[in-house]
């Protein structure tokens, strides 16, 4: 009988890694809920912001924001917290908390290459 000996440190690392993945999945799921509640109103397919972005990107980028794969945390934060895009209002802490924002960032970056 062959036995494969796995070092304890590797088991620990695998366990930590699994926990991390589970926590990340949870964060992404939480981010999806926040996105559906706050962002999809304008950014779902066919909604106002999507139509504006369709005209702007002309197919060069996905107009539906949660289909993007190249958004940075800094850009998402700036868009949510400050009035940088003329048509998009900023959202305050009592609407989208810092924890919510972190979750939205995780959700929007879930498919990044």
């Amino acid at each position: 009988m062959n036995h494969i000996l796995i070092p304890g440190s590797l088991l620990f690392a695998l366990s930590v890694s699994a926990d991390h993945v589970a926590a990340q999945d949870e964060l992404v799921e939480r981010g999806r809920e926040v996105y559906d509640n706050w962002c999809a109103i304008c950014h779902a397919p066919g909604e106002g912001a999507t139509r504006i972005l369709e005209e702007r990107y002309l197919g060069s980028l996905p107009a539906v924001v949660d289909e993007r794969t190249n958004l940075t945390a800094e850009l998402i934060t700036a868009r949510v917290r400050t009035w940088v895009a003329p048509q998009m209002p900023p959202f305050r802490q009592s609407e989208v908390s810092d924890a919510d924002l972190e979750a939205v960032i995780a959700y929007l970056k879930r498919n990044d290459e």
Partner: protein
Amino acid sequence: MSPLYQTDQEPVPSAAVAPANVEEVQAVVRIANRYRIPFWVNSTGKNFGYGGPAGVVNGTVNLDLKRMNRILQVNEANAYALVEPGVSFFELYRYLRERDIKLWLDVPSPGWGSIIGNTIEYGLGYTDQGQRVNFLCGMEVVLPNGEVMRTGQGAIPGSQSWQHYRRSIGPRIDELFCQTNYGVVTKMGIWLRPEPPAYLACSIMTDRNEKIIPMIDTMRPLRLGGIINNNATLYRYPFVQEGEENPDNPGGWNNRVAFYGLKGVVRQHWEHVQDAYNDAMPGTTFASNLYTTPYDLDSLGRSPDRLMAGIPSLGSSLHKTYFSMALPFDGQAAWDLILLLDEASKRHGRRYFGMAHHVETPHEMVTTSSALLRPGDDEYNQTTMRMIKDWIVSTGEQGLGPYRVSTPYMDDAMAQFSFNNHRLLRFYEELKDVIDPNGIMAPGKNGIWPRHMRENRA
């Protein structure tokens, strides 16, 4: 946004406080009283069209109620909801749809706003409950001394009929907390409407601006007589952004009306309405969409029919400032007002060809007039502000006044209500002095100032 946005004159809050429940609101109000700190209340909305979320006075603390976001009760059988101020139209709409509760609500064009905030600022919807304040039933209010009061039947401990009947004995006082600075509304009952068996969304279109006269006069007996029941709204048609109209032909009007009820009945009403317009205004064109149960409201997509079915949407007033007026339900009065505002606008290098007119109730018509703002263009925005102040004075001289204005013009607007040496304002301020002697709540709101700050009046 405010025409003062990012200028030296822009009022900026000194802090923001976001209580999570009524006890925390009371605590904040008591602290504000102890230290004489003025505060301004926001529910969920951003108040873009009416000056933004900041107060009139620089340094006023923002009391942000967004965290008070509980839908406390929905009674499907009796068609009402009891909500906190942080509940948006989107949130109540989702709540109803997710639970398959067959009630419709009335929504303004920006659905992110607070049901309480919008309703007590006399915000409009587009259904047959379009003057939504008339469907308000019972409030809980934190008074400026920190005490909690419930209005109507809610003043009876354990009331069974708080959201069923709007009065107590004595006067109904809910509207003392509408557009004023006498208390913080922490709960409100709102009557909803049962899903109708059929909904018919219609457009009545004309091609010339001046045809607003026969259009309104043709509508009047239909609205007064109960044939047209929703907040029938006239929009410029085809819509052209302000400032981009062709002065020689700025277009006509689209009167959006809706019918709710039995399929055969709504069709009959619509045929009667078309006959009336064809008789009075040959050449009028019509369009309609009929929806029946079981509704697939999501299929409405981006359709303008959404609003008259109470489906919240993204509305954008980001770069506008509003001055909304009451006027007689009369075509000539509407046309005269357009000409008056156009003349006033010309004095500032702009033009005015009319904005949306809303026949909120069978007897009441308002127009939501707005002017554009350009972020970062102070000169343009200052001109806009001067023009709107000119509108306010010019219309006041003709005996016409606003029902809702942006924060930078509140004193100018209130000054028009000057009968008998401003007796109405003096009455409001006598109440203010009794209810809020330290003047902590929203000083300057709609021109109502506490005693020690009246020298601030613009």
